[in-house]
């Protein structure tokens, strides 16, 4: 009689992430999630079933070999585990923190059917932090090819492409318009979610690979793309300028003082460190009643930053319901714990100012959900006569961003869509020979990991182009 194989005991619950308690963290800008300890990481890793056909991997946009890295982690081979991740993902310390895992890798993990999926992102973060604490090793570079590549924008797409191209032996220059590198990782995502020191370490690593980083160069103004190719001697260009232009609502009263775009608010807080005003010199005014319009990551970040800057009350106004909110689940939960108030099924109509012209009220209209639209989400429909007023003295508009048009306007022959995103083929190639593009500037607002994936793909395509062109 064949003895039945003992079924592995399934641990349904994930090891919880240690976090700063809400009442403490809303008084500081330090990281909320503290990261697993070694024991916690090993405990969580032990939950992985090492499936013969791992489902998790298909959920990762860059195809990290999740099963293998977890196996190596379990054996204590941290160095090999992190190397396994880095085969596909060059910024694991960032992705482990900000990937929308519940939509990606963890959504497909089989354990999700019976309990919590394996906390893949947290394990990735553990390994990346372990590595950073030891100091990065600089990988071997291929011999110099003598080819020069210009990368425009130092966000995740640009940084990733730069690292890969430098390793392949090309001479790489990054032109970044701002005075600090990192893109959204430094000017958008707040310190309490992604400490700037992590981005700094990644940038230093890329510089150690020999990449020349030029800050304060706005391409389209300082140099144009045709100039880079013709006069400045670059053999190829990668456009990774993101989607930085804030969208506004087009409603009456929108230009009243006290109404910010989320980009302005977050740039002041993150890049210019207004939270350390007056040590840092960029001011910001946060009123008593802050209202944030929108339901994505940007809205959560703005709301939680406003709380930390001392607002009495922060509400998020979103026109659909909690289920449709595009923000990461973890961040919605964090915002709720911290006391952010959510007003669902409401949309602004107009803004009303006080006698000095500062915003004091916002008129909203209630919504109901209609049938699903083309995107599959149920679209909100205004309910006639349901207008109501909200008291507010600061409004933050977080309804999306589109690509900055400067490059598109100054590069003849570059094909763009009517939304201003750059058109490429599946290898990131644009309508101009030698010019590639990837990340948010091609897809519109997306995710860090998809921008990195595009950076990797573009690096491969550019390499091939450079090595075959006469």
């Amino acid at each position, binding site marked *: 009689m064949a003895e039945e194989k003992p079924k592995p005991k399934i641990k349904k619950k994930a090891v919880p992430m240690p976090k700063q308690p809400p009442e403490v963290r809303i008084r500081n800008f330090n990281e909320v999630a503290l990261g697993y300890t070694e024991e916690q990481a090993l405990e969580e890793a032990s939950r992985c079933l090492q499936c013969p056909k791992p489902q998790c991997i298909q959920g990762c946009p860059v195809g990290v070999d999740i099963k293998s890295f977890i196996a190596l982690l379990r054996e204590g081979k941290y160095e090999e585990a992190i190397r396994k991740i880095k085969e596909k993902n060059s910024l694991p310390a960032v992705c482990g923190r900000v990937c929308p895992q519940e939509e990606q890798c963890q959504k497909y993990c089989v354990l999700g059917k019976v309990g919590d999926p394996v906390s893949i992102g947290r394990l990735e973060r553990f390994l990346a932090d372990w590595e950073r604490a030891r100091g990065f090793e600089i990988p071997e570079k291929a011999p110099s090819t003598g080819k020069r590549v210009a990368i425009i924008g130092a966000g995740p797409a640009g940084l990733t492409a730069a690292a890969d191209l430098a390793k392949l032996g090309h001479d790489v220059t990054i032109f970044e318009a*701002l005075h600090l590198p990192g893109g959204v990782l430094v000017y958008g995502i707040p310190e309490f979610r992604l400490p700037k020191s992590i981005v700094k370490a990644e940038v230093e690593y890329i510089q150690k690979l020999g990449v020349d980083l030029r800050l304060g160069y706005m391409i389209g103004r300082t140099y144009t793309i045709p100039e880079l190719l013709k006069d400045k001697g670059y053999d190829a260009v990668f456009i990774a300028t993101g989607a930085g232009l804030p969208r506004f609502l087009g409603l009456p009263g929108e230009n009243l003082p006290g109404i910010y775009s989320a980009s302005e608010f977050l740039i002041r807080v993150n890049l210019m460190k207004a939270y350390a005003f007056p040590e840092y010199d960029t001011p910001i005014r946060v009123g008593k009643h802050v209202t944030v319009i929108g339901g994505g990551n940007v809205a959560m970040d703005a709301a939680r930053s406003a709380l930390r800057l001392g607002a009495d009350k922060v509400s998020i106004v979103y026109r659909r319901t909690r289920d449709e909110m595009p923000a990461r689940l973890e961040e919605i939960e964090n915002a709720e714990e911290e006391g952010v108030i959510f007003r669902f099924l409401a949309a602004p109509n107009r803004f009303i100012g006080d006698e000095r012209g500062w915003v004091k009220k916002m008129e909203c209209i209630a919504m109901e959900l209609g049938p699903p639209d083309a995107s599959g989400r149920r679209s909100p429909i205004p309910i006639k006569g349901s207008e109501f007023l909200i008291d507010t003295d600061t409004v933050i508009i977080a309804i999306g961003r589109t690509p900055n048009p400067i490059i598109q306007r100054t590069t003849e022959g570059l094909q763009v869509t009517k939304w201003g995103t750059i058109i490429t083929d599946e290898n990131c190639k644009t309508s101009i020979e030698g010019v590639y593009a990837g990340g948010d500037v091609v897809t519109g607002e997306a995710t860090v990991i998809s921008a990195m994936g595009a950076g990797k793909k573009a690096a491969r395509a550019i390499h091939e182009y450079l090595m075959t062109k006469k």
Partner: protein
Amino acid sequence: MYKIVVAKELAPKIKWFEVYAPQVAEKAQTGQFLMVVTHEKSERIPLTIAGYDREKGTVAFAFNEVGRTTKELGLLKEGDYIWNITGPLGNPSEIKYFGKVLCVAAGVMIAPMRLQIEALRNAGNTIVAVIGARIKKLLFFKEEIKSLSHRFYTATDDGSEGYKGLDFLRELVASEKFDRCIVMGPVATLKKVSEITKPYRIPTIVTLMPPMVDGMGMCGVCRVTVGGEMKFGCVDGPEFDGHLVDYDELIKRQRMLLPEERLGSVLWEIGGCKCGGRKA
């Protein structure tokens, strides 16, 4: 880091810097501006390009010491370094032959106006220049602008030199024909001159100075209403049709962060902040 190769005082609290920044000098044109970050913890502030030398690789700007950032900048001397300069930003001015051009500049903006006049003059225009300031001793570049223009006037708020205020422009534009008017200076000046030229339909170009953070189209704080449409001062401007600008909205937006700015400046002056002892 960008080295200051020339630093001088044009008038009390108005300084002129020439900075070695070859990539900016290579492309700089009149009408464009720079974003300047004095040191690691400074604000980014916009300053208009007031000169450039492509051969030497330098770019020049003039600034008024009004708040903390500009006061800190004013403490730097020849040979010192500015942490970061981005530019040139914004659209260049339209420079071509128009005919007779009335150029009105007030305060620190007299400096970039000199560059603009030079360009317009080289394009064959007849230049009637007006420079103004609050009081006589704040006027500068008198000789330089006089020698570049065909006719030249000065004005002060208190009448200590030249005309008292800008009201004399009403008669000027009533008595002769101008093909274009260029105005640079505080928003009150832009508004006033635009009102004066409007009845005569003189195309009037004003340089707007809304609050800015990035200066490259990322934040929208510089939004202004021009002809009923929302425009971004930094990427759509900084020059706009003076007859279409909603000045009252701009004035309100400029006052937005005033209390905080005062606080920043005062704390810095009394040395109450830990900014690394930047104050000399």
